[in-house]
C-alpha cells in the first residue's frame, strides 16, 4: 500500500546546502523531536513544532555560510551535540545553543561534508579528506577528484577508524590510517550516502543516491568494496540527499532529488540488498537539500524536508490520526491569520522600500542601483559518452527566462517544461548561437545540455557560453554566468597514475620551453574539463576518455611537460594547442613527439568490442525501422502457433523504441577515420593514400574487423614496404 502524506509547511530560512538539516533524538520525557538547520546566512537554529507553529530554541547570529550540520554519532553519551561547518571552521553546540567547541581547521577549501564519530572528526573539502582526533589533525588524504561525502566506521577492538569516501569520479574508497585500502568504481556516480540505522557502527555498509537518480548500496565483503544498484533512476533528477524515515511498517530510505522529487523506499532490515519498495513520491518543485524522518509536530513519524531556497516542511500522514495530538482547527486558523498579518506587514514594508528604490531612479541626482548578486548555483559536468555536457542551474528565486549566447555553433537541449527558441545569427555569415529559454511558472532549477558541433584539431581555445539568467520577480536584474566547454571534453574521469604501467601503445609529446607551471595549468584548463590540480613544483595526473576509455597522462614542471596518450587524435590536438599557446605568449618551445606504429591498431583493438556491439545495435535499429513501417499487428505477432517473423526479427521487434534510437556507431567510425588521418599528420613515414582511406571507410561500414586492423597496422605495412625496397 502506498502512503498518503500531506505537506505541512513550518518555516523559512536562508538558502540551504545538502545535509544542513538534522533531527535531534527524542528525550526521555518527550517523544516530539527538535531539529537544527543551518543556512547560507550562517544562521544555525534549533526549532521544535507546537501546533504546527515553529518555536525557536536557539538561533545563532549570521556568519559564514553553514555547509554541513552533523549530530555526534552514537558513541558515548554526547548524542545531542550539534556540529556545524562553515568555511574551514567547525563549531560544536550543545542542545541549548552553547558553543562548546570551535576549531579553525587547516583545510584550504570550504568544508562540504563532515562526519563525527566519537571524538573523531572527518572533514571533506575540495579533494581532501582530513581526519581529526581530539581536535588534532591526524592525517589528510588527497583524492583524485572532489570528495562528495564520507562516513567513518569504527574497527572492533581497535582505536583506528575506516573511512568510506565518495568522490566525484564515481569512485568509492576506503581509507584507513591515511592510506588507501580499497577502491571501487560505481557506474551510477553516487553523490551522497547514509548508513542503515539497524547496523553497528563497525559494519561497512551504506545506501547511496547517484547522479543518474538511481539508488544503491555499498558494502564490504572480505575486505573488498562492492556496490549494487537497487533502484534505477527512472528519469528523475540527480540525488542531492538521502535520509531515513521509520514508521510502523518499517524503515524507509528517503531520497531527495535535484528535480524536487522526494521518495520513500521501504527497506528490508533482514536483507538490505533486496530491492526496496517504493512507497511514496512527492514533487516539491524545487531542489531538495535534506530529508530526515522523525516525530516533529505529532507523536507520529513524519518526513522533514529542507529545500535549496530555504523552505522547511513536513510530509505527514493525512489519515485522521489518533485524536490526542491532532491539532485543533482553531490553532491552525490562528496560525494562518498570524501569517496573513505578517505577510500584509511585509507587503507594506516591501512596498515602502520599492517606492524608495524607485524614487532614487527618478531623481536627477545620479545615485547607484546595486542589488546584490542573485543566488544562483551552477555546475557543468564533463562530456558523457555522446558528447553532451550538462549544466545544472539552481536558483533561490523562480526564473522567468534564460538567454544563452555562444560564438560557436552549439547543439543545445533543455528541460521538457521549458520552451527553447533559437533565432538566426545576427549577421548572415556568423555561426553564433542565440537561444532563449522561457521557463514555466515557479521554475527554480533547470538543466542545459550543450554539445559542440565541430571539433577541429586546430581549435585554439575552449568554447565560452554566456548564460543570462532573468528571474521572474523583482528587483529586475539578470545575472550573467559563464560556462567554459573545453576542447577535449571527454577526458572527465580521473585515474590513478599507475595506469601508466598498463600495456598500451603510448603516443608521447615532450615540450620544453620557458613556461611556468601556472601557465601550463591555465593552458590545460582550456583543454580538459573539471578542475586541475593546483600548480605545484611537480604536477602529475591522469584522466580517461568517458567513451573510448583511452588514457591521457600529464606530467609537468617549470620548463618541461610530458604528455602521454594512447589516442593519437588527443595527442595531435594537445601538441597543436600547446605549440600555439607558446607562440601566443612568445615562448620558444621545443616539441618532441613519438608515435608508435602500432598505436592505431592497438587502440582499435581496445574498442573493438564496443565497435562490434554498436554496429549490431545500428543494424538492429535499421531492421526495427523497417519492421515498424510494416505496420504489424501486435496480436498476430504474439501468437505462438503461426509465427510471422523469424526469431531474430521478433527479438528486434520487441526492443523498446527508446533504447534503439541512439547508437554511437557513427561517432566510432568518425573517431577511427580521424585516427587514420591523424597518423599521417604526425608520423613522418608513409604517405596518406586516399584510396586506402576509402577502403577503411568501407571496411568500417561493413564491420570487416580484420580489414580495418590491416589498414591501421602501420608497423606491419612499413615492414612490408621495407621488404619491398
Amino acid at each position, binding site marked *: 500500500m502506498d502512503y498518503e502524506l500531506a*505537506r505541512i*509547511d513550518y518555516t523559512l530560512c536562508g538558502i540551504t546546502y545538502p545535509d544542513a538539516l538534522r533531527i535531534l533524538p527524542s528525550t526521555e520525557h518527550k517523544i516530539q523531536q527538535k531539529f537544527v538547520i543551518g543556512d547560507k546566512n550562517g544562521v544555525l537554529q534549533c526549532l521544535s513544532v507546537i501546533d504546527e507553529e515553529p518555536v525557536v530554541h536557539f538561533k545563532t547570529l549570521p556568519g559564514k555560510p553553514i555547509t554541513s550540520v552533523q549530530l555526534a554519532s552514537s558513541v558515548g553519551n554526547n548524542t545531542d551535540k550539534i556540529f556545524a561547518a562553515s568555511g574551514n571552521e567547525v563549531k560544536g553546540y550543545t542542545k541549548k545553543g552553547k558553543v562548546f567547541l570551535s576549531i579553525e581547521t587547516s583545510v584550504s577549501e570550504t568544508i562540504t561534508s563532515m562526519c563525527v564519530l566519537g571524538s573523531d572528526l572527518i572533514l571533506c573539502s575540495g579533494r581532501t579528506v582530513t581526519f581529526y582526533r581530539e581536535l588534532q589533525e591526524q592525517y589528510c588524504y588527497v583524492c583524485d577528484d572532489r570528495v562528495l561525502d564520507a562516513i567513518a566506521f569504527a574497527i572492533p577492538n581497535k582505536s583506528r577508524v575506516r573511512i568510506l569516501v565518495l568522490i566525484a569520479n564515481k569512485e568509492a574508497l576506503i581509507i584507513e590510517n591515511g592510506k588507501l585500502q580499497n577502491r571501487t568504481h560505481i557506474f551510477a556516480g553516487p553523490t551522497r550516502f547514509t548508513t542503515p540505522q539497524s547496523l553497528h557502527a563497525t559494519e561497512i555498509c551504506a545506501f547511496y543516491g547517484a547522479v543518474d537518480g538511481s539508488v544503491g548500496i555499498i558494502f564490504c565483503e572480505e575486505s573488498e568494496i562492492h556496490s549494487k544498484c537497487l533502484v534505477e533512476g527512472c528519469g528523475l533528477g540527480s540525488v542531492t540527499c538521502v535520509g531515513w524515515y521509520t514508521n510502523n511498517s518499517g524503515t524507509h530510505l528517503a531520497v531527495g532529488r535535484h528535480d524536487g522529487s522526494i521518495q520513500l523506499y521501504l527497506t528490508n532490515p533482514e536483507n538490505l540488498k533486496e530491492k526496496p519498495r517504493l512507497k511514496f513520491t512527492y514533487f516539491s518543485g524545487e531542489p531538495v537539500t535534506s530529508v530526515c524522518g522523525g516525530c516533529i509536530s505529532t507523536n507520529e513519524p513524519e518526513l522533514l524536508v529542507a529545500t535549496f531556497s530555504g523552505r522547511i516542511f513536513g510530509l505527514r500522514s493525512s489519515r485522521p490520526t489518533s485524536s490526542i495530538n491532532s491539532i485543533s482547527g482553531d490553532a491552525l*486558523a490562528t496560525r494562518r491569520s498570524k501569517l496573513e498579518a505578517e*505577510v500584509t506587514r511585509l507587503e507594506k514594508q516591501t512596498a515602502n522600500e520599492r517606492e524608495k528604490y524607485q524614487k532614487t531612479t527618478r*531623481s536627477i541626482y545620479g545615485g*547607484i*542601483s546595486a542589488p546584490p548578486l542573485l543566488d544562483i548555483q551552477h555546475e557543468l559536468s564533463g562530456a558523457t559518452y555522446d558528447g553532451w555536457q550538462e549544466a545544472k542551474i539552481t536558483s533561490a528565486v523562480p526564473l522567468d527566462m534564460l538567454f544563452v549566447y555562444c560564438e560557436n555553433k552549439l547543439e543545445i537541449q533543455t528541460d521538457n517544461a521549458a520552451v527553447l527558441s533559437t533565432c538566426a545569427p545576427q549577421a548572415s555569415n556568423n555561426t553564433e548561437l542565440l537561444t532563449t529559454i522561457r521557463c514555466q511558472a515557479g521554475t527554480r532549477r533547470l538543466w542545459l545540455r550543450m554539445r559542440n558541433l565541430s571539433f577541429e584539431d586546430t581549435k585554439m581555445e575552449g568554447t565560452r557560453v554566456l548564460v543570462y539568467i532573468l528571474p521572474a520577480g523583482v528587483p529586475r536584474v539578470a545575472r550573467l554566468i559563464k560556462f567554459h566547454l573545453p576542447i577535449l571534453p571527454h577526458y572527465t574521469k580521473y585515474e590513478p597514475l599507475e595506469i601508466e604501467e598498463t600495456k598500451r601503445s603510448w603516443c608521447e609529446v615532450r615540450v620544453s620551453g620557458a613556461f611556468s607551471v601556472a601557465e601550463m595549468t591555465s593552458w590545460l584548463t582550456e583543454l580538459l574539463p573539471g578542475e586541475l590540480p593546483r600548480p605545484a613544483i611537480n604536477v602529475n595526473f591522469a584522466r580517461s576518455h568517458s567513451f573510448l576509455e583511452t588514457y591521457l597522462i600529464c606530467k609537468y614542471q617549470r620548463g618541461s611537460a610530458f604528455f602521454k596518450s594512447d589516442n593519437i587524435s588527443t595527442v595531435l590536438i594537445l601538441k597543436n594547442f600547446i605549440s600555439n599557446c607558446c607562440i601566443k605568449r612568445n615562448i620558444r618551445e621545443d616539441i618532441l613527439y613519438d608515435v608508435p606504429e602500432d598505436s592505431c591498431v592497438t587502440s582499435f583493438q581496445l574498442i573493438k568490442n564496443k565497435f562490434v556491439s554498436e554496429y549490431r545495435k545500428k543494424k538492429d535499429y535499421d531492421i526495427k525501422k523497417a519492421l515498424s513501417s510494416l505496420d504489424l499487428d501486435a496480436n498476430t505477432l504474439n501468437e505462438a502457433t503461426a509465427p510471422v517473423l523469424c526469431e531474430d526479427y521478433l527479438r528486434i521487434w520487441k526492443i523498446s523504441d527508446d533504447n534503439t534510437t541512439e547508437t554511437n556507431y557513427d561517432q566510432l567510425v568518425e573517431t577511427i577515420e580521424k585516427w587514420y588521418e591523424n597518423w599521417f599528420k604526425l608520423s613522418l613515414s608513409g604517405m596518406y593514400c586516399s584510396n586506402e582511406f576509402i577502403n577503411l571507410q568501407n571496411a568500417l561500414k561493413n564491420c570487416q574487423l580484420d580489414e580495418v586492423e590491416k589498414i591501421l597496422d602501420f608497423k606491419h605495412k612499413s615492414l612490408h614496404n621495407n621488404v619491398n625496397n
Partner: protein
Amino acid sequence: MQAPNLQPVFKLELNHKVTPGVVTIAKYDGTHACLTASAGYDKIIIHHPHGGMISGRAQRSLAHGEVSELNLSQAVIALATGQIKPDCNRDMLLIGSPTQILAYDVHDNSDLFFKEAPDCVNVIIVGYFGKYKDILVIVGGNSSVLALNWEGTELFWNVVSGKVCSMIIFDFDKDGENELLIGCEDSYIRVLKNNQFIMEIAETGPVICLSQISDVRFAYGLGNGTIGIYEEGIRLWRVKSKQNVVSLQWSGENLACCWANGRVDWRDGTGRVQRRVQMRSNAAAMLLADYRTVGVPDLVCISDRGEVLGYPPLQENIGLNKSSKKMASEEDRLAVTELLNKKQALLVELQHYEANVASVNQDQERSLITMPTNTRLQVAVAPDSEEGSLQLAISTNNETIVRVVLILAEGVFESGETLARHPHVGQLKSLLFVPLQPPRDVPVDVHIKALVGYPESEQFHIFELTKQLPRFSMYLMLNPSLVKTKIDSYVTFRITERVQRICIWINQNFLLDEEIELESEDTKELHVSFICLRDKSRLDMDFGVDGQVKFTTHDISLAGELVQSLAIYLNLSDLQVCYIFFYILC
C-alpha cells in the same frame, strides 16, 4: 503548487492503433455509445461494449471481442457522426476520404449517400446552421467549406482562404442562429454567417482545434502550442506549451486539454493547471461522452496505441466524505504554504533593497553589479527602406550599455518566438538597433526585455516594455509630391464619412513620423501614398470630395485588408466594393 493526480473511472484497451484526430463516439442504435476510430490507413474500428453485434460489412476483430472492423478502399481522413436522417434518432457515420464523403447507417448496414469532394476533405462536422431546418453535414476542404443535407445534396459552399483545420458550430453573435467558426491554416479564425464572413480573428499559428465552452465562449488551440479562450471575440487568456494540442473539452468547470504527447490537464477559468495525468503513449483524441451510461458525460481519452481512459468531471472538493473540520484545516494548511511562498518572495525582495542601500553607502562605482539609478531606456520604431524592415532603436540615456535585447512577439519571427541581439564585446554601445519584419499586416504586440549595465558587468538591470505596432506598420509614407508610378489595379468604393475620421484611422493603423493633419477644417479630400517595406511596391489612397475612395495597389490581399480595417473602424456592416485587378502572366 502541486497538481495532484487523478484516477480514471474506466479504462480499456482497444488492441488496435488509433490514428490521431480521427475518432468519434456515436449511438448507432440510438441508445448505446460506441467509440469509432480509424485504425490505420483504411480501417475503421467500432467498439461496442454494450453488446449488439454489428453485422453486415463490419467484421468482428480478431484482436478484441468487442470491436468490429470496417474496411474501406480509401484512406480515412475524417470521421463524424450525427442524427442526420430525419425522424430517426440513430447516429449516422460520416466517413471522409481524400476525395469523397460516405454517409453510412451502421445499424441498418446501408449507405445514405456518397458524394465526391473535389476540394479534399479535412474536417467534417454535423449540426444545425443558420436558417436551415435540417441538420447539415459541413465539410471543410483545402480552400472551401461545403454543406450537404442528409441525402448528400449540396446546400451551399463558400471559399475559405486557406486549408480548413477545424470547425465548430456556434452562435457567435447570439441571435439565436448558429454560425460556423472555421479555424484555418493561415492563422485566422473566421466566422461564417448566412454564407458571408462576418468576422476574422487573427491568431499566431494554424488553428488546429476549436471547442465550444458555453453560450458565449469558445476555446482554441494552435499549431504552435498555444491554447486559449475567447468570449465574444475577445481573448480571455492564452498559454503556450511546447506540445501540440489534440483536443480541448469543457468538463465540469474546467477546460480539459489533451496534448499530443499524451498529457491531459484540467485548467481553471484563468488557464492555471489544476490537475494533470499522463497517458502511457501519445494521445489520439479526447471526447466528451457518456460512455458508462450514467447520465453525465465523462472525458474519454484515447491514446494512439488504443488505450482508452475515462475521467469524470472534476469536483471542487474531492473528499466530500471527510469531515468539514478536516476540510477546513486542510484548506488552512494550503493557505499557510501559499502564504509562506509569498513571504519568501517578499523577503527576497526586501533583502535586495537592503543590500542595495548597503552597497550604495559603500559608494562603489561601476562595480560588477551597479547601474546609475537615473538610467532610462528609450525605444523608437523607424522604418528602414534600405533593409526593407522596421528598426527598433533601443538606447539608454547615459554611459551604460545595452548588453542584450530580447524581443518576444508571436507570429513575427521565422524561428521560434524570440529574437535576440547580443553585440560583440567591441561593439557595445548605449544604442542598439533590432530589425523587425512582421510578415503579415496584423497589429503586433512587441515585448522588449533589455539588459542594461556596463560592458564588464556580472549582473544587469532588466528593462521591460511593450510596444504595439499598428496593423500597417510595414508601409512607409511617401512625400505626395513624388511622381506616381502607374498601377492599373485598384479598388473603389463610396463612403459617407468626414475626412477627419479617415485621418484618425490612418494615424492609428500606420506607423508615421508625425501624425497627418488636415490643412484646414474645410478640407474634404485626402491623398496619401505609401511604399511597402517588404517588396517596395506602392500604395496610393485617395479619399475624394464626393466620398469616392480609391486604393491603388497591385496587392489584392492588401487591398482587402485595408477595406476590412477601414470598414470595421467606420462600423460599416455593408460595403459595395469594386475590385479591378490586372495580372501579368509570365
